């Protein structure tokens, strides 16, 4: 169910013909007919098959890697170890950026002296068949020597802990000092203090990492791959020591990413094998390999201390965050920054102190995952809000209403919020949509939970993010959009077609978006950080508008009317003052072409920038803007079995402007179930760094049988920085879900579970603690 709530707007109302309508996504039909090719579906004549040999332990010294027997096997074309590669570390550029490199992200392509995490790659194999490659892998022998590892994030930060890399296990640390927390706590009538813990979550996209690479007749290394970021071509070229313009990456339609295909996936491995063999090489990971190949969600320990007045107003907040980066930092510094800035949530906290740190351990890597640090903070600050409400005898909504940040207020880092903040409307609508409360009984307890959030969209301002797009109109009136954005399933390429169609007045079927190609298309940056639509949509709109201006200038001369008297709708240009002056768009394009009018344009959209935060106070501008909204849910908890069932799940979000309401609702509904998984069942478990949940048999994600009654409510303030006033939506929809479920469970059983996921076992234990009076009741 989708409901678009018509509302007042902060920006002048635009008459939209295609934007805002539930149009069929351009990619949907071929996906439903089974025609869409994903990276692992590709083959080439003479193709070799690749396999990866991985370490069987999380921390060790490598004494010797013996590949002689593997190399000798018939049909094996290439075996590469670190000793065969130029002695280069991969320093990952901030994915998708054109600017400088980040510090601390150096990671060997293949492990050399040391293994730092379980299943770290040690050797690459290419062979004539999958079976031969697998047999060769079995013939590789590694001699290890013990090396102590560290697997607990707090322990990793203590003096004398084994060092994962370099001279300290601190990957990054931040602080925020705002106002006077001491005074704030003095003014408080009540101080509430709690520690929360969140777990490692696996993206579990359905399509495991896959790709195909080959050298072509221009000596260009081509890689077709499942990725969120085609800009990794630079890291690959640098690692091979070849010029940037000789690596051509094409992203296929991606079978899900959620951040897990934002770092290098397998591009580098494919590149090395294809470059060394000069043959096409294909690599498809198994599910088990996929689990260890990409960074998962950072587990956090979140300690919150909040001072409140009797009326519910927060007077001070102190937050300590500890996250685990695994062995290599990847995007950990940024994930931590998001959590730090997002620590107080969508609330105005004038006296705020945050200290955060992310530690290196020998656990599996953590990296980008939808919600990116912010959603973990949400579990804690929203849990804290409900604990405050309970102590003061207020409703969850009331305590939030006392504290919501509003347009014009300054957030945790002192950044002024410029766009609409409709947290309150969203919360009210989400709660209302829950309808009548289900009836519980002695055994089954019903609870309701609410969670609000603040989630940025667009990248960190000092990344100086930009995006380019090219739009052109052909003489038959069809439109081409070229933009190297990747399409990871949220309808990225379809949205651009829709925007160009809107601006140029053609039906969407007349537009083709060429996407995901780093060489033939203008670079657009990543599909991450809820930025794709914001950035590439604006660039596409700018380019299409310029083409439109050119066409209308010609038409104005032709019809002898000013260009602003002309409209482009339904495949015609028509004078508003005299509808008889009109011609179809194909004719317009043809005549413009004959007269040498420019029918295409390349535009660049640049996000607002800043120079970073004050390191002592954490004050400054971090993000372009934020999305606000709420999630509410109703759960049933069986107090005998501990089982939690989500009955209703409602997301209400101010998306600024929905381009395609069906797609927006799809993001909200998908988030509801993925967030439910995080709240209740999903957990990557490692025992001393060894993965014990390596497949979907052990790592359980919600199935069709777990789906609650789900509802998406879309509010449109048209106040965002994206095209037509839109705001980013991919992550915001997800941000509050788990928090709302945790709150609902606490409401149902009268005791809070501070550690996710909320398994039956934890529910039973919490109920036992409550019964034995070990829980302080407010």
């Amino acid at each position, binding site marked *: 169910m989708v409901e678009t709530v018509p509302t007042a707007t902060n920006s002048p109302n635009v008459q939209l013909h295609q934007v805002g309508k539930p149009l069929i996504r351009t990619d*949907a039909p071929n996906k*439903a007919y089974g025609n869409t090719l994903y990276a692992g579906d590709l083959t080439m004549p003479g193709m070799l098959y690749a396999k990866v040999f991985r370490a069987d332990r999380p921390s060790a010294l490598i004494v010797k890697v013996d590949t002689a027997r593997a190399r000798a096997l018939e049909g094996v074309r290439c075996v590469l170890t670190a000793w065969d590669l130029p002695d280069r570390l991969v320093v990952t550029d901030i994915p998708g950026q054109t600017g400088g490199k980040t510090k601390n992200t150096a990671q060997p392509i293949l492990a050399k002296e040391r293994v730092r995490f379980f299943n770290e790659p040690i050797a690459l194999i290419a062979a004539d068949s999958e079976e031969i490659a697998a047999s060769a892998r079995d013939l590789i022998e590694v001699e290890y020597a013990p090396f102590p590892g560290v697997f607990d994030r707090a322990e990793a930060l203590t003096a004398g802990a084994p060092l994962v890399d370099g001279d300290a296990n601190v990957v990054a640390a931040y602080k925020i000092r705002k106002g006077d927390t001491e005074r704030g706590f003095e003014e408080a009538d009540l101080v509430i203090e709690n520690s929360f813990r969140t777990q490692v979550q696996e993206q579990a996209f359905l*399509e495991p990492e896959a790709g195909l690479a080959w050298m072509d007749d221009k000596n260009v290394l081509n890689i077709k791959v499942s990725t969120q970021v085609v800009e990794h071509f630079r890291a690959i070229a640098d690692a091979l020591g070849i010029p940037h313009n000789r690596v051509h990456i094409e992203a296929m339609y*991606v079978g899900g990413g959620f951040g897990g295909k934002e770092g290098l996936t397998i591009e580098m491995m494919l590149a090395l094998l294809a470059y060394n063999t000069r043959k096409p090489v294909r690599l498809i990971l198994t*599910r088990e390999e996929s689990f260890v190949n990409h960074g998962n969600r950072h587990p956090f320990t979140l300690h919150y201390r909040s001072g409140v007045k009797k009326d519910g107003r927060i007077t001070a907040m102190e937050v300590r965050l500890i996250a685990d980066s695994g062995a290599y930092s990847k995007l950990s510094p940024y994930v931590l920054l998001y959590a730090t800035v997002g620590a107080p949530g969508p609330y105005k906290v004038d006296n705020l102190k945050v200290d955060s740190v992310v530690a290196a351990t020998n656990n599996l890597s953590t990296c980008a995952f939808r919600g990116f640090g912010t959603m973990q903070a949400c579990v804690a600050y929203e849990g804290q809000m409900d604990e405050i409400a309970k102590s003061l005898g207020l409703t969850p909504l009331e305590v939030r209403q006392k504290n919501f940040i509003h347009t014009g207020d300054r957030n945790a880092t002192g950044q002024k919020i410029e766009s609409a903040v409709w947290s309150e409307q969203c919360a009210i609508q989400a709660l209302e949509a829950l309808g009548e409360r289900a009836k519980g009984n002695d055994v089954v307890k019903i609870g309701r939970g609410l969670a609000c959030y603040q989630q940025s969209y667009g990248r960190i301002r000092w990344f100086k993010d930009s995006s380019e797009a090219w739009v052109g109109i052909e003489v038959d009136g069809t439109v081409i959009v070229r933009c190297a954005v990747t399409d990871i*399933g949220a309808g990225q390429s379809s949205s651009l077609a829709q925007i160009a169609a809107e601006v140029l007045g053609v039906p969407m079927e007349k537009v083709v978006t060429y996407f995901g190609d780093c060489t033939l298309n203008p670079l657009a940056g990543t599909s991450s950080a809820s930025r794709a639509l914001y950035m590439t949509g604006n660039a596409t709109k700018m380019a299409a508008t310029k083409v439109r201006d050119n066409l209308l200038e010609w038409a104005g001369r032709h019809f002898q009317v000013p260009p602003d008297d002309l409209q482009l709708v339904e495949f015609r240009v028509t004078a508003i003052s005299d509808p008889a002056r009109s011609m179809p768009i194909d004719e317009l394009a043809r005549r413009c072409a004959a007269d040498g009018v420019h029918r295409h344009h390349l535009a660049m959209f640049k996000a607002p920038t800043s120079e970073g935060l004050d390191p002592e106070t954490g004050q400054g501008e971090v993000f372009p803007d934020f999305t606000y909204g709420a999630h509410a849910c109703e759960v049933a908890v069986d107090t005998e079995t501990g089982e939690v069932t989500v009955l209703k799940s409602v997301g209400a979000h101010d998306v600024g402007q929905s381009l395609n309401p069906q797609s927006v609702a799809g993001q909200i509904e*998908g988030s509801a179930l993925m967030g439910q998984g995080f709240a209740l069942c999903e957990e990557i478990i490692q025992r001393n760094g060894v993965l014990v949940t390596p497949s979907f048999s052990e790592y359980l994600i919600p199935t069709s049988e777990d789906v609650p009654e789900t509802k998406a409510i879309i509010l449109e303030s048209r106040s965002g920085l994206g095209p037509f006033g839109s705001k980013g939506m991919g992550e915001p929809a997800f941000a509050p879900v788990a928090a709302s479920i945790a709150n609902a469970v606490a409401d149902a059983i009268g005791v809070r579970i501070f550690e996710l996921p909320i398994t039956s076992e934890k529910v039973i234990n919490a109920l036992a603690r409550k019964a034995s009076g070990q829980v302080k009741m407010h």
Partner: protein
Amino acid sequence: METSKAIKLKVNGKQLELLAAPNSTLLEILRNNGHVEVKCGCEKGDCGACAVILDGEAVDSCLTLAWIADGSEVQTVKGIGTEATPHPLQTAFIEEGSVQCGYCIPGIIVAAKVLLDENPDPTDSDIRVALSGNLCRCTGYTRIFSAIHKAAQVMREGAQKNG
């Protein structure tokens, strides 16, 4: 490899003879012979991306040995309908916005087709059970359920008209 043998399969109405090793799965031989519309998400029977209709029943082709399928009839999502002759399920999935990344969709349409063949008027819970072996990480299933209801209705109406 010496022990490979030719097996007969009718795939989407076309009779094929394919070479299969004793341990080859139906998924492998289908994909190696161009039927890449059958997806692979786990190779363990956990995800349903590889589902095909084998003699009228939905099976995980990654768990089915090719030799066991010898002589059988296989239908993949492409055999269920095409752009020229779409199945009502495909039309409904497209119209309802049920498709996101799309990787799960070939398997889900297979499972839904078998359900509707057996049960033209499924309840919500019938649909949930029928899809319980098909993981979808993107959509939250809501629009998949509504598309299946819609297709069922279209098919029932069609049957009434024809009957």
